[in-house]
């Protein structure tokens, strides 16, 4: 049995599963980005109850483990609503919640890092609230937010590995399954780690570059 | 402002040298020849002002006196101690030499009082009570005692620099080095710092000051040294320096700072 699994075959099987890691990452990032933007808008809202609601949301999903969020989505939601969610749907829900909370926090930080004078100056020019955001605040905040956002994308990719625990077959689950059959743990998990590294490291580098460039401009 | 007492004998005899630098040469690690053989003798009780264009090596030169900068050729003797790379001598010399920096360099996590008392306690192993007594006296003399419990960040630049002077004096040094102590200050704060320095000079402290404060130099300095491109160009009295400069380099410099 195990001699069927040559190095080449292990690698190819892992690569096939990597497709799902990438797809899940993209789904999480797109949905999480959209939800995160809305939560961020709520976080900086002038209306207190709205701010409070979004604070609770961010506090909960930043303050609890992603693994538990996956369990809540997979086991909890099916029990409460009496529907059976597939691992992919459950993982999408949990990763979206997780990603949106962190992105909302990162983006709020970028907005709040802008000098108060920017709000005041645009008020003085007679901009309404949403025009202020659209034309003055957000374009500047985007610049500050790029590096931490790309950096967080790495956390999302790594986070998708936990979807394996609720039975979604992506890179980590494939690695576990291959390990169960071949018992070549060092090789299999090193290979899986290497694939994750190849996905994540370029993004990390990019994030560092952007941040350095921003710091140089500031000085 | 009250007078300072200098440790040791307050009356200096002209024959005793506090600092003797002979043909000091220094290259930075990038190969830049910053000091090209500078000799200078500072007598005890003397106030020497060092002037020169930016980048001429003034900071580098006075920082060799307390071994903040190593040098490659020549020799330096401070209070009779030969400055060698050996750590033992470095410690001995740093005990005799106080330094005041352009950027104050106060310790942000210590209160004003602790900034002054920490070195006597931790470096000189002075009993805390004694260090506190000295600190109180010094802060009173520089006029900051009422701010003793504040952190440096809560003080103005001029106040911070006065604390920095008190901090250096708390080690009871025989020699004080000043590296552009008023250059980072807003104009209205320059005077309060110069007043403290004046008072220190009249107490008989040996001082080497890098400064472009012409009034201070004319009034307080015994000698003025002019440094350009790592060379000592002029070593003369303030009157000679300002009224009758010898070199073109000095004249050009003076025309720039005197407008």
């Amino acid at each position, binding site marked *: 049995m195990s001699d069927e699994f040559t190095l080449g075959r292990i690698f190819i099987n892992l690569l096939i599963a990597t497709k799902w890691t990438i797809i899940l990452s993209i789904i999480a990032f797109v949905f999480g980005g959209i939800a995160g933007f809305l939560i961020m808008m709520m976080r900086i809202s002038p209306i207190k109850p709205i701010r409070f609601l979004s604070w609770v949301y961010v506090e909960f999903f930043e303050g609890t483990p992603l693994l538990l969020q996956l369990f809540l989505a997979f086991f909890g939601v099916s029990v409460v609503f009496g529907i059976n969610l597939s691992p992919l749907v459950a993982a999408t829900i949990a990763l979206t919640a997780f990603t949106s909370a962190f992105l909302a926090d990162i983006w709020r930080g970028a907005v709040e890092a802008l000098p108060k004078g920017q709000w005041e100056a645009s008020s003085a020019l007679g901009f309404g609230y949403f025009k202020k955001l659209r034309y003055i605040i957000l374009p500047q905040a985007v610049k500050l937010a790029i590096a931490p956002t790309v950096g967080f994308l790495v956390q999302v990719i790594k986070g998708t590995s936990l979807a394996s625990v609720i039975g979604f077959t992506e890179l980590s689950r494939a690695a576990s399954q291959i390990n169960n059959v071949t018992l070549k743990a060092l090789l299999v998990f090193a290979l899986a780690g290497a694939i994750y*590294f190849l996905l994540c490291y370029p993004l990390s580098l990019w994030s560092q570059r952007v941040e350095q460039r921003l710091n140089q401009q500031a000085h | 402002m009250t007078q300072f007492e200098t440790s040791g004998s307050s009356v200096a005899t002209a024959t005793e040298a506090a600092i003797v630098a002979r043909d000091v040469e220094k290259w930075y690690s990038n190969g830049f020849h910053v000091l090209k053989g500078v000799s200078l003798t500072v007598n005890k009780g003397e106030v020497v002002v060092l002037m020169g264009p930016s980048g001429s090596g003034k900071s580098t030169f006075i920082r060799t006196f307390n071994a903040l900068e190593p040098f490659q050729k020549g020799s330096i003797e401070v209070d009779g101690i030969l400055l060698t790379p050996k750590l033992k001598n470095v410690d001995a010399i740093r005990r005799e030499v106080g330094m005041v920096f352009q950027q104050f360099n106060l310790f*942000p996590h210590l209160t004003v009082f602790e900034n002054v008392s920490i070195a006597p306690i931790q470096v000189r192993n002075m009993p805390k009570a004694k260090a506190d007594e000295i600190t109180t006296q010094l802060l009173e003399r520089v006029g900051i005692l009422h701010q003793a419990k504040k952190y440096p960040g809560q003080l103005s630049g001029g106040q911070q620099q006065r604390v920095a002077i008190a901090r250096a004096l708390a080690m009871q040094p025989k020699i004080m080095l000043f590296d552009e102590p008023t250059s980072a200050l807003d104009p209205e704060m320059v005077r309060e710092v110069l007043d403290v320095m004046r008072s220190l000079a009249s107490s008989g402290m040996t001082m080497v000051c890098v400064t472009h404060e012409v009034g201070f130099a004319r009034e307080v300095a015994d000698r003025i040294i002019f440094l350009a491109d790592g060379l000592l160009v002029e070593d003369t009295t303030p009157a000679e320096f300002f009224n009758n400069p010898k070199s073109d380099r000095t004249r050009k410099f003076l025309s720039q700072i005197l407008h």
Partner: protein
Amino acid sequence: MGYAFDFSVIRDNIGLFVAGALLTFRVSLIAIAFGLILGIIGALFRTSGNRILNAVTLAYVEVIRNTPFLIQLFFIFFGLPKLGIRLNAEQAAILSLAINFGAYSTEIVRAGVESIPKGQIEAAMALGFKPLKIFRYIILTPALSNIYTALTGQVILAVLFTSVVSQIATEDLTFAGDFLNSRTFRSFEIYFTVCLFYLAIVWIIKGFAYWIERRFFEFAKYSRR
């Protein structure tokens, strides 16, 4: 919705949750302590000026930061025995968490050391301070105050990461939830309660961090950089 929430399962098994929480707490504490030591050593290597030490440490930092913790855990738990190193689940959990925390804290501590202006150290040298006392009295407190926000964040992430060690049957808080879930099918109540336990731990850490800030880093309010 027709579902009737029933939290009695929590009440009946509270001992299980508390035991799990205690294990989570212990594993976190030990792993973070060792990880911080690793981080301080790593930061020394990164700032040592020695090229080889710097490169090796940087490789460690980047490999750990760019691979999932789950894979690191499996590599250590399933892989090390192949090299003849026997670890029980808890030891493997602590080891992998410490290695993980060490990588992140290396960069945090390095940033802290590098945040101290050179003039601070020169002023201390001019006053006659020797290197060890410069580190203890001049560098340590400002450096800690510069990094403690980042360090607190990383500690919280590390505690949340510990949930993953349930996957190698370490009997932590998450494992307690899994165990009950397989027996009672009160999934939502159980996992929600486990989440609240983690939230409580996170808030305790945040409160402690706030206390430290007030107690030791008050000066930082005034020193603008």
